[in-house]
């Protein structure tokens, strides 16, 4: 009985931890944390190439749906070392939500002083 309660408690705790994370943290952040190029640096690379909010978001979305070496904003050296990511399994809505969170997290605007 004690073991059962312990198991249920662990499952509930795991579920709470899992569902308290948003779609970005669940699906993006986790893997990228293991890469040498941070999400911040990747964001800055996107910003340098695509500039505006709409264009940056459209570029990220396009790349995640159909990853392509030619479309990547990362250097050839990085691609050769780590390869390109797999196609995203998220729905379009989830993808857009994740990208919105990503934009809001790393956006330059309102952070410059």
């Amino acid at each position, binding site marked *: 009985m004690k073991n059962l309660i312990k198991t249920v408690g662990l499952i509930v705790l795991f579920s709470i931890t899992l569902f308290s994370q948003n779609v970005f943290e669940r699906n993006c952040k986790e893997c990228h944390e293991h890469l040498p190029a941070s999400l911040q640096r990747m964001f*800055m690379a996107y*910003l*340098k190439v695509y500039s505006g*909010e709409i264009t940056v978001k459209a570029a990220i979305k396009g790349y995640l749906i159909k990853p392509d070496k030619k479309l990547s904003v990362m250097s050839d050296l990085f691609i050769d070392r780590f390869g390109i990511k797999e196609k995203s399994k998220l729905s379009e809505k989830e993808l857009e939500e994740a990208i919105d969170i990503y934009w809001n997290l790393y956006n330059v*605007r309102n952070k*410059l002083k």
Partner: protein
Amino acid sequence: MFSNQRTVLSGYATEQVKRLKILHHYFPARDKYPRDSRFNSAIYDIERVLIFSTLENNKVDLDKVIYRAGDKIHFIKYLDDYYLGAMYLIIEIDEDRSWYRDTILHILALGTIMLIVLAIFGLFFVKLFLKPMKNSIELLDNFIKDTTHELNTPISAILANIEMMDTSIMSEKNIKKLSRINIAAKTVSHLYQDLTYLVLGHQRISKDEIVDLKALFLDRVDYFYILANSKKISFDLDLEDASLLIDPVKIARMIDNLISNAIKYNKRNGTIKIVLRKNYFVVSDTGIGIKSDKISSVFDRYSRFNNSVGGFGIGLNIVKSIADEYGFEITVTSKLGEGTTFRVDFSKDVIDEKSN
């Protein structure tokens, strides 16, 4: 317009781009937007959304390269790499209006040069166009000068010999002929005196003395009597005593010319009325008169009322020059077909108050 500022602003923009590049690389560890005491700046992304601005005038036109915004000048630079997402970099400086002063100075300098060049050209062309006219006047003047010189001796000889002739032993027919010779010689003599005055008169220094005008008028009328009589012209004299402090040769030339004109342009059986007062004299004729539009030009040299009457057209020009010299005022009134009146008002300076 902004050619001077453009170079400076372009330099500022390049410096700012370098700073943005560094900030882009170190962001978010460094988040202070680069500032410069010499200029303000702002960055906009590709969708023309403001990223950051230190501009004082926020009226931005991203479609222009350089423009004036109030008392500021904005310069737009398009970035090749969108550091911090910036596609447009705006550099703002104070407008010192030096370009305005420069432009005004340039306009003034060029305008002055153009004006001088045009004036030189104008002068050149005016001289070129007036040359034929000047030449013809010079030719006439030279002709008069040359002929005058040769006239003196024969005229003096003719007049002196006429005076010496004893008319009491002459027949009536010959007396008439002699009278005609006398008139002709006096006409030529009068012309000679006019021409001499014209050629040499201006170089002559006036010898002013008290002149009894009444006596002078009587003398000149007597001189012209034979000439007037040939056209059956009678004199109507109304002379009061008057004296002037004036060169006798000049006042004689003036009176002679006015009387000579009155005879020349009078009708046969006409009258010449001469009125002399303390302050003025009037010579009027009953002649052909002058058209009203020609009155203003009667004193011009070589101007004649009527080509059918002989003369050089210099008489009234002499009258005017003498009048101007002594400050006399001449008034001409004329009615076509009825006659012309010349009124000469003396200036106060020459009226001899003591004698009057």
